[in-house]
């Protein structure tokens, strides 16, 4: 009889915890859809201007660079200057694995470490000034944005983030400049 009483008591406690956890399905952060002080800096980091080239050629050159980097194109809409691409790659870092192994040796239990990541990118070309049919634009801003999701060995999401490292964007645009040049030269 005592067992029958204790089970629902435990169940009740479990349910209470569950309610708290699920009830906490958090709401949208207040700054999620607002411009922030670093909006402008990020825009500059992620944008370059290209002159004297058609939009189609910029997009073709961009698709080429994305392919060079191993991305697969998921979507494109040339009428709006949009290319969307992604790639799945390993996220294993030697440091994390070593730490996990050391911890396993000490504690006897294996800890999860980052295993795989999905990297997404969208690249958007936009005319610098408004175009007319008679006067098609020849200057464009190209803005590229990267983001990624990382899963660990237990298949849990450990990181869900925008990629903001400046060198990544600089290197990307170096490659794009070369590719645009080659595209213009038809090489």
């Amino acid at each position, binding site marked *: 009889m005592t067992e*029958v009483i204790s*089970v*629902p008591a435990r*169940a009740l406690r*479990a*349910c209470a915890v*569950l*309610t708290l956890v*699920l*009830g906490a*399905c*958090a*709401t*949208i*952060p*207040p700054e*999620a*859809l*607002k*411009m922030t002080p670093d*909006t402008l800096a*990020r*825009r500059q980091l*992620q944008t370059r201007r290209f002159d004297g080239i058609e939009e189609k050629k910029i997009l073709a050159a961009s698709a080429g660079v994305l392919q060079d980097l191993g991305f697969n194109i998921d*979507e494109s*809409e040339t*009428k*709006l*200057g*949009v290319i*969307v691409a992604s790639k799945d790659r390993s996220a294993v870092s030697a440091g994390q694995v070593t730490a996990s192994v050391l911890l396993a040796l000490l504690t006897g239990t294996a800890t999860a470490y980052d295993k795989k990541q999905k990297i*997404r*990118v*969208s690249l*958007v070309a*936009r*005319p610098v000034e*408004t175009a007319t049919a008679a006067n098609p634009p020849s200057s464009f801003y190209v*803005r590229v*944005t*990267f*983001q*990624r*999701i990382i899963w660990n060995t237990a298949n849990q999401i450990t990181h*869900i*983030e*925008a990629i903001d490292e400046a060198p990544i964007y600089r290197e990307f645009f170096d490659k794009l400049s070369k590719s645009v040049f080659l595209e213009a030269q038809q090489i």
Partner: protein
Amino acid sequence: MIHKHGIALMVVTLALAVAGCETSTKQVLATNASAVQLRSFQSRAFDTTDSEKTLRTVIATLQDLGFVIDKADADLGSVSATKLSGYQLRITVTVRPRGEKQLLVRANAQYMDKAVEDPKPYQDFFTSLEKSMFLTAQQVD
């Protein structure tokens, strides 16, 4: 014995029910706010008929807000994008004609596994958009 099974069943049922953000197919057509209310705070009218330029401005604004574009369709007039920043926020923005002289821009967002049905985030989005549009976002009824 029957007692124990009964309790186990009760616990499972309770757990399922508590798994609250409902698991059933009811969610397919479910909303919390009324459709009229939703439309009102998810929509704004702009005094322009250039839907391509408007879509391009929407895309640029989404990029400013940290979104990566998922899809864009000029003919349908829609853009979908995802923001990852410790959380996942998805948004779809549509642009369609409203009368002869205006475009209606509508946005709907989902944060993690929930619809965003609070007016404030949409207000923020349209505030950002109108700055890039150089046009006023007009409330519609």
